[in-house]
């Protein structure tokens, strides 16, 4: 038997496979199926700051400010007093998941600013969240905002949240930091317990018919895993933060590579959405088989064994290999260069 257990942000997990925030946690049944398939923990779908605000604005606009100033109609909608807000629904769902599952449940907060939504952390903790994942979904599009300011935004929100909760906090990061390792260390100092590499932004797309810019969600592909693996390898051993990888982990080899690079857990999402919850059990089995075949005793033995610190060629994780890769590319036959 191989010991598949791993420790992540202080949580003892049965294995490193943790479904990330996705619609799969929207209903208790599919969450239970994930657990049955072997998920060692579950990151709940995200509570979006944007959605909280949109809901408040909708209520403001269509309930509290209904009047158009006409004699016959001071309002157009009944004013419900039994509204269950998006946050309340999230909390209730968290409680349901907690009572339905034995594995840890990590609540996910998704936002960009320092406002009231962060206060929600306390209630998430009270509702039973074993940890919080904080996904700061910030696109640094403001020319006036420096890189430092962007980092400070993360730190401020983290500290605000730390003031609310005692459960571990994972920061889900963007891949677009100038100096990710330095920033990870700053997060560590600020009290983070782990980081998840990396979030994936919806990419705006141009509709060729209407010329409108529309958001587009593409499921990840294995190709994206390599970026995460590289930075995991670079971070491993340089920080006490737990490391999670997320985005592009579809096949067992992707998972193995992440663990070799130093990840404590590997988040799965697109692969489960595409192939169903059962795929998790298959990966887990294949992982175990690989470890057995390659005579590893445990996941811990494997973890970080090909990080930069332990890599055969540490420089391969750095910039040098960029040139090599480009040079190695040749066009298919018949394509003019």
């Amino acid at each position, binding site marked *: 038997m191989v010991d598949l257990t791993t420790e992540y942000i202080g949580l003892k997990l049965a294995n490193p496979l943790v479904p990330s925030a996705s619609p799969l946690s929207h209903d208790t049944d599919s969450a239970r199926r994930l657990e049955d398939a072997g998920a060692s923990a579950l990151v709940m779908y995200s509570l979006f700051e944007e959605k909280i605000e949109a809901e408040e604005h909708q*209520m403001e606009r269509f309930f509290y400010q209904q009047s158009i100033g006409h004699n016959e109609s001071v309002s157009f909608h009944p004013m419900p007093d039994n509204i269950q807000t998006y946050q309340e629904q999230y909390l209730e769902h968290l409680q349901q998941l907690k009572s339905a599952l034995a594995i840890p449940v990590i609540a996910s907060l998704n936002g960009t600013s320092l406002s009231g939504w962060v206060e929600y952390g306390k209630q998430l903790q009270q509702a039973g969240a074993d940890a919080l994942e904080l996904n700061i979904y910030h696109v640094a599009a403001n020319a006036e905002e420096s890189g430092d300011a962007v980092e400070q935004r993360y730190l401020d929100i983290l500290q605000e949240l730390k003031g609310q909760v005692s459960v571990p906090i994972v920061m889900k990061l963007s891949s677009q930091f100038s100096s990710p390792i330095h920033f990870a260390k700053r997060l560590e100092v600020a009290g983070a317990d782990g980081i998840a590499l990396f979030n994936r932004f919806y990419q705006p797309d141009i509709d060729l018919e209407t010329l409108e810019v529309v958001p587009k969600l593409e499921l990840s592909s294995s190709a994206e895993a390599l970026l995460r693996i590289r930075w995991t390898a670079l971070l491993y051993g340089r920080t006490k933060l737990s490391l999670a990888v997320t985005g592009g982990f579809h096949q067992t080899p992707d998972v193995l590579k992440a663990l070799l690079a130093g990840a404590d857990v590997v988040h799965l999402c697109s692969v489960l959405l595409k192939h169903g919850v059962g795929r998790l059990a298959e990966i887990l089995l294949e992982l175990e088989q690989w470890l057995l075949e390659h005579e590893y005793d445990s996941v811990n033995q494997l973890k970080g064994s090909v990080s930069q610190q332990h890599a055969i060629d540490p420089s391969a994780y750095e910039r040098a290999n960029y040139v090599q890769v480009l040079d190695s590319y040749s066009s298919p036959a018949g394509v003019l260069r």
Partner: protein
Amino acid sequence: MKNQQTLTIDGNQAAATVAHKLNEVIAIYPITPSSTMGEWADEWSSRGQVNLWGTVPQVIEMQSEAGAAGAIHGALQAGSMATTFTASQGLLLMLPNMYKIAGELTPTVFHIAARSLACQGLSIFGDHSDVMSARMTGFGMLCSNSPQEVMDFALIAHAATLEGRIPLMHFFDGFRTSHEVAKIAMLDDDVMLAMINEEWVAAHRNRALTPDRPMLRGTAQNPDVYFQARESVNAYYQAMPGIVQRAMDGFAKLTGRSYRLFEYVGSPEAERVIVMMGSGAEAVEETLDYLNRQGESVGLLKVRLYRPFDAASLLAALPATCRKIGVLDRTKEPGADGEPLYKDVLGAVAQDFSSGESKFSVMPKVVGGRYGLSSKEFTPGMIKAIYDELKQAQPKNNFTIGIHDDVTHSSLDWDASYRTDAHADTFQAMFYGLGSDGTVSANKNTIKIIGEATDLHAQGYFVYDSKKSGAITVSHLRFGPKPIRSTYLIGENDADFIGCHQTIFLERYDMLANAAENAVFLLNSPEPVERVWASLPARMQQQMIDKKIRFYVIDGYEVAEKSGMGKRINTIMQTCFFAISGVLPQEKALADIKHAVEKTYGKKGHHIVELNFKAIDETLASLHSVPLPTAVSSQFDIQSRISDAAPDFIKRVTGEIIAGRGDALPVSAMPVDGTFPTGTAAYEKRNLALEIPVWETDLCTQCGKCVMVCPHSVIRSKIYPIEVLANAPATFKHAPMLGKDFPAGLEITYQVAPEDCTGCTLCVDMCPIRDKSNASRKAINMQPQPPLRETERDNWDFFLSIPEYDRRLLKTNTIKGSMVLQPLFEFSGACVGCGETPYIKLASQLFGDRMVVANATGCSSIYGGNLPTTPWTKNPEGRGPAWSNSLFEDNAEFGLGMRIALDKQNEYARELLSALREPLGGELVDAILNADQSDEAGIYEQRERVAALKRHLQFLNNQSAQTLLQLADNLCKKSVWIIGGDGWAYDIGFGGLDHVLASGRNVNILVLDTEVYSNTGGQTSKATPLGAVAKFSAGGKATAKKDLALLAMDYSNVYVAHVAYAGKDTQTLNAFLEAEAHDGPSIIIAYAPCIAHGVDLSNNHRQQNLAVKSGHWPLFRFDPGKIKQGKNPMHLDSPEPSIPYRDFVKTETRFSMLWQTHPEDAERFLEQAQQDVKNRYHYYKQLSELEWNESTSVSAVKAQLKSESAKETDNG
């Protein structure tokens, strides 16, 4: 007697509170101003709030007030305690059942927000015309004068009816009392329990119809016994006044508030007494108190119980010294020699005096007068005038007060500047806001804050606009240590505080006319402190100097923007009021506002609470006191919004109403029969839009779509020869006319009416053309209005001066062609981005010159026919739609009557024409009789022929010729359009609509389907979709929308179209053309997004598209004309649903809110609705693919059709 909790609520809420507590069945139907009583009852029941006996009352919305009365009658007969709420025409619809209910001695209380009846014009405002029309039903009538009395009398009425078995109308003045917000003492359950004797309830239940104790009620009676049976109830009516007084006495013991059937106030030795009922009595009491302190000796008798009329109590209440009695009626009975209350009082006094046992030594003189019709103001000056008149030896009888009657000279003169000292300790404030800027809700909050945080009495009354876009609201607030009896608006020189929340009002309204000396004027203005004085009109500057106004200014929008409130200034302006009015200590006021904000948004809106707090904190720093200069410096003044070029009537009458001086118009200024000229909206330049569309000639392909979608007809196109441009202003835009149908040398212009545009942006949204180098630039784009106003005004005037293009030369079956036609419906007061008006405008473009419109009451009759200005207009030849609104329920029949009359006149004209063949010449006669008027050319030629005929007829000196001369225009085609909303077509008017569809007559019915009662505030109709949240369906409508189209198709000879203009504009256009061409009934059911859907109407087109694509609103046309050609009449114009129904419903608050209140139901409804739209589409698709012949009908083929789910089952 314990301390009673006080709440600051309006009269309707007060009535509904008691009614909901004391009933088990509540049948409702919306009608202004009573609608909110039903809304409250429905809301409380849907929240599970129980009545006095611990059970939740059943609230059911009916299809009409007649239905509500029927349901109540049934519920009462079955032994429940049941009630309803209504007003005006609604009460009239209940009359037949009211006779029955009273005839059967059935206890119930109907709560009535008394309102005018539709006579020469509709009015939603308050008077006693409705209740007086019901006084013969046998119902008792109890009148309350203030929100407190509404609550108290509601309970007294319920107690008395249960004991005495006489049903009661409990009524109070619409708006003045129903909508006045006041601080009142609440009745708790203990008081109610003590008032309602369980034995009476048991007795009522024992009289119920039940098969366990079968009996029969409601026989048909013959001459032998009917009369006696009718008299058998007398003892009950005789006993009732005593029962009501006992209930009042019992109530007084419980609450300390004492009432009498006839309540006398004033001098015990008064010689002059006013007798009246309703809110006006409060103003009289206030005035007489002052007069008596000034040494006069006058009195007032308030009539509480009007029916059964207890003459003895009335006489007992009058002082023996009384010599002159002025009886005031708030109703008019044309042709009578006095109004009802006057006649009753006169009869009582005369009978008493003639008995020889009167306490009066001489018979008092009794005169009657009318006041306050349709909420006309009733002020201390008027009241004093009445008392003064009573000093005359022969006081005027049948007088009017409050108007200037220069025709029959009925009116009394009054001193408008007369004031009592009632407001010496009262703080009076007025606020001018836009309907949508939250001013009213902030003021309601202010009243609650002051009402609940202090011992002060509080009163709030709100005056709204008759327009739905850019509507102004004027809030009148009073606070004071003494009870406030001022049931009239704050008047000239009275206000201690004036708040102007929008700078646009500066150039429109004389706001400071009402300011008192040393009053505070608070202005929300973007102008910096040093320049704000210069932004005021000269008149206002002068008033400020003369009245020593204390002037404060804030840039509320800047504070809102900075604090994250966007464009919401309500909290900011409320904070300013508290900061500078001194009504409350500033610190306390700010804390109270914050508390109120938290109470409003609570935990549901943490973020909004934070933003509001921030705005409150930042307000004080941005509020500036502006020192007054000593002299007027402004070069401009408040301007008339009517141009000098307007016709005399418009200037003399319409202009005065627009300027807010309608009250001063004399009787002679009014048309005697309610007939007004059309085309008046064009004279009122409202300048609402901050941005207006600007046409880009280099990009435009002249598709006409922008004209098609404009809800206010402010963007137009015209084609004209290039020579016309010789006199064009330099900035006038034009482009060569494109298209093979047009000869060379023509130009086209798309022109915007800059001062009529509401800035809805829908034209820009619809424009399909984008700049190849800049995707954000379209062929039409929004730009700030102020810099464009002057030039575009000139361009618009020039555009109007260009002759219309010849209709015969246009391809009206194309959007491009039809959109060159002049709209004869323009600049309505409809909401910004209204989804209804583009359909009406389209009809007016295509058929307006031959259109007669029957318009059901509702949004379309309000934006279509509410004074002062109306949008229906005429073309340069003087032709245009003739429009009328009869009622809500009868519109289909009203239109059918028009059709029948026109057809009859046409038939008669043809008969006369045939008879006059000899003198007129066969050629002309045959040409007229056989004319083909199926297209524009045919109609044009027929009009030419008829013009020639009329010239001939003038010279024929016989009766037939002269009769034909009067009727000749009916030889030209006339198009009858029956227009209304879904409340009319699906609910209250459905019976009539069905009959008209079945009549086979050539009428065109346009149903503007907003899927709720829009005008009265979004109540559920049978057009409301499954799962939509609307008033009366707070938990989501549990049943599917009625398929009106399918019902209409059942007749086979009815043309039916289901359209959404933004889904497919050509389909809409074709539907209108085909409906008109169909020689029989046509019905177009048009999808109309509405603010009641909980979506911003700038997304109007998106919502229509989502509705079509999701299958919510399939597009199709059913043309029975095709059956005769052996073709299938059903043509589907939209493809199979291509997006999930969820994608449609999640974009509209009316659906999406259900996920927050009843998530499981929401999912269940969604699933069902998804299946329904699939089934429905499938059903129509099969229908469209069937082989038809003349004997086939929809109902005949129905059996062959299968639902989508059945098909799936078949397919295994």
